[in-house]
């Protein structure tokens, strides 16, 4: 990375100012008083919403800062602070700017879909300068200290989150620029800032918002993607093993980004989770402007007998906008993710094909090239679902066009792909070529749908792939409607129903802009400054694409769109998948991907992947092979390569690599039923697809920092992909004393808690099955996932003394018929008491599924494998199967486990239907 292209905190005026303030406050200790005071006379609580005014006392005047404190039924509380003068427009903008005078108050409009269930019975009490509100579930309380203003969030009397404990709170109120150029308010960063040859005119002067947020007794914090950092966030104020810079959130196209760094990347989700043994809480900082977050940890002894624990102190700083904080109470991960999802929405249940394997390259250079790759996958018997086209397919980088020489007949190409239910994803970016002969470019200009420069009157012009370009402003509803119209099959000629879209460069990436993005004083729709909305920009764009694709086939024929985005914000999960951008073909980037993807998952956007093989550079065959084995566990699984990199389609690797890669991709396909089921749960409960250790075992502090092994959905499958060279075995942390973990492939047993050595030669992936789970698979590889639709299932039962259970969710994978009940949702429970495996229906309204069930009625279970049976099963030859009123026998085969392996039995072709209730009795 070129560090010089991106700001450090010291080069970003407001970050420097707020850090300086923090340093002063820390140095002054108790003697410093925060100038913010709640005016007790203004406090009012109505229907779960408290309003009041905070006064900022700066000597000559008291700046009025209206406070809205909302209390929700589920225990979530929201603190919103605005600035009275700005709300009423009593300020003057410099340079004749046409920008809005208000603080940006529309981030919620984009990010939130809920949060309106106010706790109307919240009870208020004020005494001794402290206002307390009891609300939500029993035991929830907020204590607001009036002077200086600070807030404690309590659960059962214990504080879990504290605002302004360290007096870092700062709301830079509007003030006129002093006439005297040597004026005493001479901070050089207040009125304009220059960086990389661009000067930010800052028409509103300084306006940052900042708050310190303390998590008492919580020693780990996670989240706030996107950073190439560890899952458990590091301290940022220097010291051994710590960073010297705050984590930054300012969506940017960071060329050749480096790993283990708090530098900003392409997307941002300002949601942080704090974890301590047995409890978790979260904070959502709703602000779309440039944001920095400092983290330090204080060792504290609660008392002499308790173990030493850390208190995590964070400091959040944003350049503009409201101060808007959500405190999410947890108390465990599944509650927390549900609370966060209720606010920002859950990840969309993806189209089924999109969680299969994707083949990409910058670029497949012609339609013949595409067909050739397609053919070779079949020839080498490697499944894949989607082939991708990067920017070179267009006619001179004009989106919605095809290169007339290399893609003469895209329809035939797309039909060829469709024969095997394969799809094409084509790239369409937000920069629109500035070219007189480009109708879409002219329309953009003429209709005024582009982002404007700082005058607010002239369309902004910058450089990107096509050269001189304009940027569509998707904050503008008319621009979004226009964007939607461009996807009409008559307008985007050559695209077909199996064409989906990749939105890249939507940070936005501007090659000649400051920090490779737009000037902050550019003007968007409704006169908001780019500064205010920067981190939202990418989301507005992929949302627009999503809306366009959803209804492409016409009314009543809505389909679940697939859109991949590079830039994102809280809420992006509702419409897009993301990938970690331009990584590199080296081992360290392979290793870095999992912490990043785990962070995405816990921040509510689990449909995430990293480029398999590494974007820049050429991976060795071993690295490529290991990357495929790892990528088979990326929620979004795509191989990609830079235009300068050598071809690396899996079939080119030569043996033994091709076979190992084929096995890895086939493994992904066989587990697609469980992946889809995990996505389904994420889509209504927010549980991540890849679950870090601390989510699975919130009482096991020893594993809180683990980010190189994880669990797949609810399956109990524990994976530790190999991410370093020359490995033949690896250490897996087995976290439970009384649960057996079985090797996924050969059923080797791992008993007892501790770090265990698991063999991992090149051909294998360390994968264990936690006992007590039932895993549905489809073991027959096909050319694409669509062709597996009617294939039979295999159920793997990893036995535990208490029994085992699992879930399967299936629907057509394409339409929204599932919302009308067209889905299959089954539970599989093995009861050790009566030795019976039962398939039960989890569908709340089975009648609504009738039509779909009929379509799927012939889909059966071809095999049940019970792992971990005792020797008394040895002589069992048949089991009794019951389905409906019928009963029959199925054969079983006992396989004795040798050399530390568990014995297992295989039920041969029980002929039970996946849509029906049935039992298999092993007694």
């Amino acid at each position, binding site marked *: 990375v070129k560090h010089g292209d991106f700001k450090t905190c010291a080069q970003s005026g407001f970050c420097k100012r707020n850090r300086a303030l923090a340093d002063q406050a820390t140095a002054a200790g108790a003697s410093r008083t925060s100038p913010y005071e709640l005016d007790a006379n203004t406090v009012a609580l109505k229907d779960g919403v408290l309003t009041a005014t905070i006064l900022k006392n700066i000597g000559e005047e008291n700046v009025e800062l209206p406070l809205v404190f909302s209390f929700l039924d589920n225990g979530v509380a929201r603190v919103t602070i605005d600035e009275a003068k700005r709300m009423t427009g009593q300020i003057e903008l410099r340079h004749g700017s046409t920008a809005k005078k208000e603080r940006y108050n529309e981030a919620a409009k984009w990010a939130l879909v809920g949060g309106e269930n106010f706790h109307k019975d919240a009870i208020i009490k004020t005494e001794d300068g402290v206002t307390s509100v009891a609300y939500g579930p029993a035991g929830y309380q907020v204590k607001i200290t009036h002077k200086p203003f600070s807030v404690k969030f309590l659960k059962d009397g214990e504080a879990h989150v504290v605002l302004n404990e360290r007096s870092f709170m700062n709301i830079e109120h509007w003030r006129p620029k002093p006439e005297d150029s040597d004026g005493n308010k001479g901070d050089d960063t207040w009125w304009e800032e220059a960086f990389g040859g661009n000067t930010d005119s800052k028409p509103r002067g300084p306006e940052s918002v900042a708050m310190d947020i303390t998590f008492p007794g919580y020693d780990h914090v996670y989240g706030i993607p996107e950073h190439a950092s560890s899952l458990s966030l590091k301290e940022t104020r220097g010291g051994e093993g710590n960073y010297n810079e705050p984590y930054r959130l300012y969506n940017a196209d960071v060329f050749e980004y480096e790993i283990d760094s708090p530098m900003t990347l392409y997307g941002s989700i300002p949601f942080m989770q704090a974890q301590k043994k047995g409890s978790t809480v979260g904070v959502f900082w709703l602000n779309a402007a440039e944001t920095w977050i400092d983290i330090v940890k204080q060792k504290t002894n609660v008392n002499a007998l308790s173990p030493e624990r850390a208190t995590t102190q964070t400091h959040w700083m944003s350049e503009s906008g409201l101060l808007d904080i959500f405190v999410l109470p947890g108390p465990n991960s599944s509650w927390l993710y549900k609370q966060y999802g209720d606010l920002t929405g859950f990840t969309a249940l993806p189209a089924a094909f999109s969680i299969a394997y994707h083949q990409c390259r910058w670029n497949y250079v*012609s339609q013949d090239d595409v067909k050739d790759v397609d053919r070779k996958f079949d020839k080498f018997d490697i499944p894949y679902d989607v082939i991708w086209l990067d920017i070179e397919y267009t006619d001179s980088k004009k989106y919605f066009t095809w290169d007339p020489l290399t893609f003469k007949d895209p329809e035939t190409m797309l039909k060829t792909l469709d024969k095997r239910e394969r799809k094409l994803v084509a790239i369409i970016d937000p920069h629109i070529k500035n070219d007189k002969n480009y109708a879409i470019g002219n329309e953009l200009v003429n209709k005024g749908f582009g982002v404007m420069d700082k005058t607010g009157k002239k369309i902004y012009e910058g450089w990107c792939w096509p050269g001189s370009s304009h940027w569509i402003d998707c904050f503008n509803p008319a621009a979004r409607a226009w964007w939607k119209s461009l996807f009409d099959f008559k307008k985007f000629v050559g695209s077909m129903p199996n064409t989906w879209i990749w939105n890249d460069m939507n940070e936005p990436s501007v090659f000649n802009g400051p920090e490779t993005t737009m000037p902050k004083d550019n003007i968007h729709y409704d006169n908001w400054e780019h500064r205010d909305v920067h981190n939202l920009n990418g989301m507005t764009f992929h949302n627009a694409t999503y809306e366009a694709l959803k209804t492409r086939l016409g009314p009543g024929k809505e389909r679940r769109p697939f859109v991949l985005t590079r830039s994102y914000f809280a809420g992006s999960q509702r419409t897009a998948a993301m990938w970690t951008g331009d990584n590199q073909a080296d081992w360290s980037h392979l290793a870095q991907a999992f912490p990043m993807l785990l962070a995405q998952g816990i921040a509510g956007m689990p449909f995430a992947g990293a480029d398999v093989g590494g974007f820049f550079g050429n991976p060795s065959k071993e690295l490529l092979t290991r990357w495929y084995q790892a990528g088979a566990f990326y929620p979004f699984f795509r191989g990609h390569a830079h235009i300068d990199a050598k071809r690396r389609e899996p079939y080119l690797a030569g043996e033994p690599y091709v076979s190992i890669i084929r096995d890895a991709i086939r493994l992904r396909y066989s587990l697609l039923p469980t992946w889809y089921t995990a996505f389904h749960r994420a889509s209504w409960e927010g549980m991540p697809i890849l679950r870090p250790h601390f989510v699975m075992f919130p009482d096991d502090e020893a594993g809180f920092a683990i980010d190189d092994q994880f669990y797949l959905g609810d399956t109990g499958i524990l994976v530790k992909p190999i991410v370093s060279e020359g490995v033949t075995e690896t250490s897996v942390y087995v976290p439970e004393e009384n649960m057996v973990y079985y090797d996924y492939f050969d059923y080797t047993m791992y008993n007892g808690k501790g770090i265990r050595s698991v063999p991992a030669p090149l051909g294998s992936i360390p994968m264990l099955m936690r006992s007590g789970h039932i895993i549905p698979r489809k073991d027959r*590889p096909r050319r694409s996932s669509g062709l597996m639709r009617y294939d039979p299932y295999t159920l793997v039962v990893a036995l535990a003394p208490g029994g085992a259970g699992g879930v399967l969710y299936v629907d057509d994978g394409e339409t929204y018929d599932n919302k009308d009940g067209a889905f299959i949702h089954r539970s599989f429970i093995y009861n050790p008491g009566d030795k019976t495996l039962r398939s039960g229906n989890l569908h709340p309204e089975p009648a609504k599924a009738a039509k779909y069930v009929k379509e799927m009625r012939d889909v059966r279970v071809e095999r049940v494998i019970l792992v971990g049976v005792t020797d008394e099963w040895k002589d069992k030859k048949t089991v009794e199967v019951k389905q409906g009123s019928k009963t029959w026998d199925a054969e079983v085969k006992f396989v004795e486990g040798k050399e530390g392996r568990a014995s297992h039995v295989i039920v041969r072709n029980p002929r039970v239907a996946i849509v029906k209730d049935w039992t298999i009795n092993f007694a």
Partner: protein
Amino acid sequence: TAPRGVSPEDARLYAGSAFTCLTHPSITIPTSQVNDDFCDCPDGSDEPGTSACAHLPHSALAIRGFHCRNEQHTPAFLPLSRVNDGVCDYEICCDGSDEYAHVGGVSCKNRCAEIGIAARKLQAERERLRGDGVKGWAELVKKAQIMRKEAEDEVKTTEVKIEGIEGKVKGLERELRDAEEKERRRVVRAPKEGEGGKVGVLVGTAKERSEELRAGLEKVREERDAALERLKKAEGILAALKEGYNPNFNDEGVKTAVRAWEEYLAQEETSTKLNDAEERDLDDLLGEDPVDWDEFLEVDEPQSDLYNIEAYLPESIKVWVHDKLHDFRQILVENGILAPAPDTPGIESKAVNAARAALKTAESEERNNRARLTALNDDLNTAYGHNDVFRPLKGECIDADVGEYKYEFCFHGKAHQKSLKDSSSTSLGSFARIEYTTPEDVGGQHGLFDAGWEEAHEEGLSGVVLKYDNGQQCWNGPKRSVNVELYCSAVNELRSVREEEKCVYRFEVGTPAVCGDRVEDAKGESMEERVRDEL
């Protein structure tokens, strides 16, 4: 009858009341478990007619796939993973027998009749073309033989010629030596300083000086040309940089260089252009010297033979006296008694000049002939492929317009990419070698599956590849190179061009030159059989 998915030849393996896994004899299952859609054999042999064993690794499989009878066409094997997947795989199973379970309601009717007709038509056409190709190949081989014979003949005649010239050179060398000897023995060759030969000295010096200047000028001009060449190259590099740099790499160094180059271009418009008139003047200066210095230098016969004592002595003594006098003079010179004789190079008699010129001509003739001989031998030793088949094609060029470029390559020559928009041309490399590979489109190897009929419309590649490398360097990439993949064709043609990865091109070229490889490889198999196998 054979179970579903089993070829008639293999039917016997499935006869009897029990079935033993083909490569796992320890496992025997009842016949009822053959094709019961559950995989029992670790080699997949119990499920030739279903997809139940499709998950097995290729290396473990004992069967070739699902056998489609394809009556009225050619039987074929379909990968097990494609059985009952809801797709009519007509390119392999034209009879639609692979979708007997009608999953998802699919129904594949038997299309072997029409596909068979089309395939046979295609096959006949292919055979015809191949026949022409083989004829073309035979002609090339014949031509190559003649060319080789001609070259070998020329080698012989050249060798004889060289022998003759060698003799001539020796004779001329002798004559030159004699002439020089005669010259040396002439007494009082040059006038002493201070005597009447002042003009002679002046002329000598002037000639020397003139020649020095001309040599100097020549050298300067060569250096200038070399410098201009380098400048042009450097400017070309910068122009390519400006054209090809990727602004997304956002490299300050590159951006600065591009900016500076643009400024440079604006300022330096005319500087490097050569002035034609000045060039002509230089040519004149360096051309034939207008002054005949020899005329001024030609020394008349010595003024007095008296000085030439040696001339009066008998031949035998003359040499001895000459040598003694010479030695004596040396001693005097070395001891500082006598001044050294004035050095007068270049002042030679007409006789010596003529002898030298004659020798030079003969030597040059010898050199030319030797060069020709080397070239002939090199050519004869060059690998022109089996039967020298590419020899007649050397220097022959083919091209095709693909996209915005004309792609051209010459057998045993160079490959180029020429813009159709402007006159720019990029070297994609020079011929390096012929490689013989396994043609990638032959299926059934390493557990791979045949592409099938659908993709077999194009003539398959022969596996003979002409490698071109060392082309123009790519921005941010390697030097350009081309793999010319050859297939059998009646005429030379460029079928397709693809940039497979950055700056590595793949040309598919048809030529009769590889039609014979098929004939030779077939080893007894008839053309027809080969062709049918292809299909």
